[in-house]
């Protein structure tokens, strides 16, 4: 395998919404060189590959950024960062305008105003959101993009990020990239838990199976402080296709009903976790399956739903048509997904300052990997990309490139490529991945246990995940594609390991389903704290931090 050394001013890991927007911001506002490292191909990578149906974070007329921040704080039952939510919310509308200028189609009324969907959403044609963003990158000669390169580790020296290492997915190349600052904008983590349909359709998840928590895992291994992993995200989705439900619920005003036809929403409440919990509970108590009540909608509405789903989750339209049961004649069955770790929806991720700097100097986080700032969705990820870009630009003034030593390169090279030299493993990569998913499903609150867990189960989960981590060291790789799969598995295992620690530490049930601790089934005000963690030499230490109240900001202290 060849070693290639590159350098740039700012390295962005992940070519999704946050990463691309950070890149564009840097290119437009400075002379700095920027390199985006992308595991797939930026035109269709990450969670927006198929498209997105609406912009779910927008400050509609009559609303203020503070209203959005308060909404998200309330949805998180108090465990989120008001400072981060506010700085994000203040940018939601300007980044939306920029997205429109880049070519995104947004529905407008006869007066040229955006058509609103509720208080916080606007309607778009988001099928081509990734191609639009990718094209904007192509138009900037100062932005370099390397597709098909999987970042595997940060280069850190004296507590400062000085670049990263990556391995080409399809070619025998090991990359060493020196940078004055690094922005992590990878996705969250799917595939840690056993999915809804673990057989042939195992990858028919809501969040992409290719988002494996690499950004989190690299941060954990580098000793970065992480927050709120225990606030898992479980999505309420259309059964089988795992397609989004908001389009039906908000689009045609469909109620959530049980098999008796009762609207059960009011019984449980309307926060994101309560909606999932209500559906789980109705099933446990014998009133399942649950549905979105679409029966009786007009043919025009049905046709519009077909189109809307083709623009974000085509499988749902195919399902309606091939089953011969369109939504106007049959209600749409719903179910909860397996748990994900994803900072764009809940608050899991890097512990950051208001400027999106992490606890590692020179390393910034934006989008799904940045913690404390839930409900950011697409526009919030763009906003964080912009904030991180500004902060990185200001940081690199006066910084010079730090050379990554040959010795460090050699150590990392051996660590990353040793699987090519391993000669015997009893287990395949897939075997261990399935084992991890089964362990997490059974002992760490997966679908199997209706998302519930207790300390005894978590102890078992922890032991078994540690065993898998040991076994994963023996895996063999024939080529760089296998290597990529091994890194993905190892990243998931690392996220799982830290997640279990977080679940153990929150001895309460603040969010039903998201963190349903049967030893402590009630909310407990003593846990009105952020649960954070740092890892050093494989040992994870928990940190309980007091809530940052409205008007306060968190700044890292050296």
């Amino acid at each position: 395998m060849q070693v290639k050394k590159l350098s740039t001013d700012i390295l962005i890991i992940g070519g999704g919404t946050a990463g691309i927007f950070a890149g564009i911001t840097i290119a437009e506002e400075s002379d700095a060189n920027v390199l985006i490292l992308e595991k797939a191909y930026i035109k269709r990578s990450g969670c927006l590959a198929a498209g997105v149906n609406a912009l779910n974070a927008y400050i509609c007329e009559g609303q203020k950024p503070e209203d959005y921040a308060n909404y998200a704080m309330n949805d998180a039952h108090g465990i989120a960062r008001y400072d981060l939510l506010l700085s994000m919310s203040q940018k939601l509308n300007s980044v939306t305008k920029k997205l429109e200028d880049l070519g995104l189609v947004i529905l407008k009324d006869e007066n040229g105003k955006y058509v609103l969907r509720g208080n916080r959403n606007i309607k778009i044609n988001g099928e081509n959101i990734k191609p639009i963003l990718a094209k904007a990158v192509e138009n900037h000669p100062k932005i370099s993009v390397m597709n098909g390169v999987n970042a595997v580790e940060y280069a850190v020296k004296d507590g400062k990020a000085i670049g990263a290492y990556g391995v080409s997915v399809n070619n025998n190349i090991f990359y060493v990239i020196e940078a004055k600052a690094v922005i992590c904008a990878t996705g969250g983590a799917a595939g840690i838990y056993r999915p809804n349909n673990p057989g042939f359709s195992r990858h028919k998840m809501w969040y992409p199976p290719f988002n494996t928590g690499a950004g989190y895992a690299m941060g954990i291994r580098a000793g970065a402080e992480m927050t709120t992993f225990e606030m898992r995200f479980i999505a309420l989705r259309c059964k089988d296709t795992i397609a989004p439900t908001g389009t039906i619920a908000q689009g045609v005003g469909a109620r959530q009903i049980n098999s008796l036809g009762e609207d059960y929403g009011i019984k449980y409440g309307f926060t994101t976790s309560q909606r999932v919990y209500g559906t789980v509970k109705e099933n446990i108590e014998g009133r399942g399956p649950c549905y979105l009540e679409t029966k009786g909608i007009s043919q025009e509405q049905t046709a519009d739903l077909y189109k809307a789903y083709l623009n974000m989750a085509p499988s749902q339209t195919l399902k309606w048509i091939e089953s011969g049961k369109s939504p106007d004649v049959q209600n749409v069955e719903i179910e909860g997904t397996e748990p994900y770790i994803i900072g764009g929806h809940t608050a899991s991720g890097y512990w950051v300052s208001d400027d999106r700097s992490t606890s590692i100097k020179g390393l910034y986080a934006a989008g799904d990997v940045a913690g404390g700032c839930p409900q950011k969705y697409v526009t919030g990820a763009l906003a964080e990309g912009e904030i991180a870009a500004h902060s990185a630009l200001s940081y690199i003034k006066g910084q010079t490139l730090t050379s990554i030593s040959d010795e460090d390169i050699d150590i990392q090279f051996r660590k990353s490529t040793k699987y090519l030299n391993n000669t015997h493993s009893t287990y395949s990569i897939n075997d261990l991945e399935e084992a991890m998913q089964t362990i997490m499903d059974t002992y760490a609150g997966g679908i199997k246990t209706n998302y519930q867990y207790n300390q005894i189960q978590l102890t078992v989960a922890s032991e078994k995940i540690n065993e898998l981590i040991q076994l994963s060291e023996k895996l063999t790789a024939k080529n760089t594609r296998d290597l990529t799969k091994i890194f993905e598995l190892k990243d998931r295992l690392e996220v799982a390991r830290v997640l279990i620690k977080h679940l153990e530490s929150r001895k309460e049930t603040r969010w039903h389903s998201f963190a349903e601790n049967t030893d402590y089934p009630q909310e407990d005000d003593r846990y009105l704290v952020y649960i954070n963690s740092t890892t050093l030499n494989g040992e994870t230490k928990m940190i309980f931090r007091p809530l940052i109240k409205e008007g306060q900001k968190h700044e890292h202290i050296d």
Partner: protein
Amino acid sequence: MSILINQNKCIGCGKCTVVCPGNLVHLTKDNKAKISNIKDCWGCCSCLKECLVGALKLFLGADVGGQGYTLYAKDKGDISDWIIEENETPKAKITLNKKDANKY
């Protein structure tokens, strides 16, 4: 959920191999598109949107209620036709205009 690739129709342009977010589609030695593991597909349809000859089609696994129908897209600039077939016989066509926003 996965894609079917009709290698007889495939012209070997390789466009589908570039865009897959999971790096799953590759060209064989005789220049035909092939998915490395059919179970690894997410069903996002990025690949079939690139295909000019309708060689790639989405289908639902039987485990999620698939009935064996397929779905593919014919891209015509601002317009794209989505065609649903049973045994290669068209059953439905839905035309989307990229300039139109969703109503929902």
